[in-house]
């Protein structure tokens, strides 16, 4: 018997893997020591657990365990990396390059940088959500200290050409940072091969607990330094003060270990399932995939169903937990800026659904989702004046809408 609603919003967060919870349990109960307590076995046990987690994480992204800085999550890591680099390298320059489709944790941090005297270039993306390497190269200046471009996009799953981007940044003497939140644990991310100098990622997008994440900071070729953004006990090589969240860190470590073992098989299974979902939903007239089909995370599908509105559609697919590119919470509706950056019109951005699959998604759930979405779209189109006009051959762009 299928349990409803079906969770397909795994880009927002994933459920905790029971094996991760099992690994964490002792550290929520009897092993409660402070990892910074050097004088007794309680502290040693906690420190040992943290070191073990560092090894597990380093094993997943191919770095030295010392290059992992624990944080509260990807938002903190993004903030710490960008602000910390801006402060540390202010002698060298004040220019940062990013893209228009970054997560708000990067975009708003960049806006903050602009307020405190920095210069930021926001590279546009093409209709698939990919940046142009030529435009990146042209934007590089002697003052450019950092290029920060996300690995895989949270809304569309589009994967940027990370290695090529890193090479361009390095050629011009800048550091390369990536927000790896959606990619780490889902596809192979190798900081050495990819040329990544800093990376933000988090546990709860890969079946780990919420409230814990990490920042990877390169220690060799070059040695990267980040100015701390929080004052305190000087934990994490002075870059991030605060008592370590030992159970969370143990969970992140276990999640990384499982990802390393199961990522290849998971990716293959999920992309097969995702492709089936997508192929079936595209049999509906006037439905379109958003983002790159070729360069995409294996578990993500973002589809616009023209002439139905996203929030109305979400209500129609009440048996599914998905998210929409429409946020109809005020009189001035703001469709997804990521989809708009891809060149989607506001109405098509409003009409989108994002499906994010997980390790725990089943074929039976996908079958149900396919039928459920098809029924809802069909029903709402019968109710949609825009669909009727489209069917009558009326060009909606030529209508003078009474804006409200």
């Amino acid at each position, binding site marked *: 018997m299928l349990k409803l609603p079906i969770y397909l919003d795994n880009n927002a967060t994933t459920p905790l893997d029971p094996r991760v919870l099992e690994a964490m349990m002792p550290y929520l109960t009897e092993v409660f020591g402070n990892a910074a307590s050097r004088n007794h076995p309680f502290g040693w046990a906690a420190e040992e657990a943290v070191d073990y987690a560092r090894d597990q994480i380093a094993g997943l992204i191919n770095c030295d365990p010392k290059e992992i800085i624990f944080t509260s999550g990807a938002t903190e890591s993004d903030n710490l990396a960008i602000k910390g680099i801006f402060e540390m390298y202010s002698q060298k320059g004040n220019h940062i390059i990013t893209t228009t489709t970054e997560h708000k944790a990067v975009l708003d941090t960049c806006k903050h940088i602009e307020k405190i005297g920095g210069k930021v270039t926001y590279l546009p993306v093409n209709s698939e959500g990919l940046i142009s390497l030529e435009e990146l190269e042209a934007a590089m200046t002697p003052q450019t200290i950092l290029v920060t471009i996300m690995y895989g996009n949270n809304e569309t799953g589009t994967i940027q050409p990370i290695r090529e981007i890193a090479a361009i940044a390095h050629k011009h003497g800048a550091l390369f940072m990536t927000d790896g939140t959606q990619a780490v644990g889902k596809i192979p991310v190798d900081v050495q091969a990819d040329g990544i100098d800093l990376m933000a990622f988090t546990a709860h997008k890969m079946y780990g607990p919420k409230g814990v994440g990490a920042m990877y900071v390169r220690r060799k070729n070059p040695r990267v330094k980040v100015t701390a953004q929080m004052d305190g006990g000087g934990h994490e090589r002075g870059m991030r003060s605060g008592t370590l969240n030992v159970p969370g860190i143990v969970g992140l470590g276990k999640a990384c270990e499982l990802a390393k073992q199961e990522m290849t098989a998971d990716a293959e299974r999920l992309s097969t399932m995702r492709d089936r979902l997508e192929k079936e939903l595209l049999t509906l007239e006037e439905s379109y995939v958003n983002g790159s089909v070729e360069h995409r995370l294996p578990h993500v599908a973002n589809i616009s169903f023209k*002439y*139905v*509105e*996203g*929030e*109305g559609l979400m*209500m*129609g697919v009440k048996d599914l937990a998905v998210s929409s590119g*429409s946020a*109809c*919470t*005020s*009189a*001035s*509706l703001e*469709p997804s800026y990521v989809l708009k950056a891809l060149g989607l*019109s*506001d*109405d098509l951005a*409003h009409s989108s659904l994002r499906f994010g699959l997980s390790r725990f998604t089943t074929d039976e759930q996908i079958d149900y989702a396919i039928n459920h979405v098809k029924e809802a779209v069909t029903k709402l189109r*019968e*109710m*949609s*004046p*825009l*669909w*009727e006009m489209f069917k009558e051959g009326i060009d*909606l762009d030529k209508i003078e*809408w*009474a*804006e*409200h």
Partner: protein
Amino acid sequence: MAYSDKVIDHYSNPRNVGTLDKSKKSVGTGLVGAPECGDVMRLQIEVDETTNTITDAKFKTFGCGSAIASSSLATEWLKGKTVDEALAIDNMEIVEELALPPVKIHCSVLAEDAIKSAINDYRVKNGMPELEMAKSHH
């Protein structure tokens, strides 16, 4: 966001979805909203000229559940009302009936606009002067 039972009911079983023949003199059509705003409502009324009474009302809406429910409810209320009574429908009555939260009040405003716009279309078609649209809610 949690929807009220009434919104869910109108959304799941919308009343009077459909299309009236807009070429008929007795039919008034109001089309309000814009696709880029995420809401488009088309509301139609058929008026009995002799009694000035609305005999039929139909809607089609592109929008969120509250927008669909607001227009569905409006058609229910319109049937049997005189045109003057219909003009008196205030968006806050819709808000109250559907228990719309503050962020969804614009859906009820749109429904009121759609009613007035349909009535105006009917008036113009039948040689009456257009009424000034109250845009005070915006």
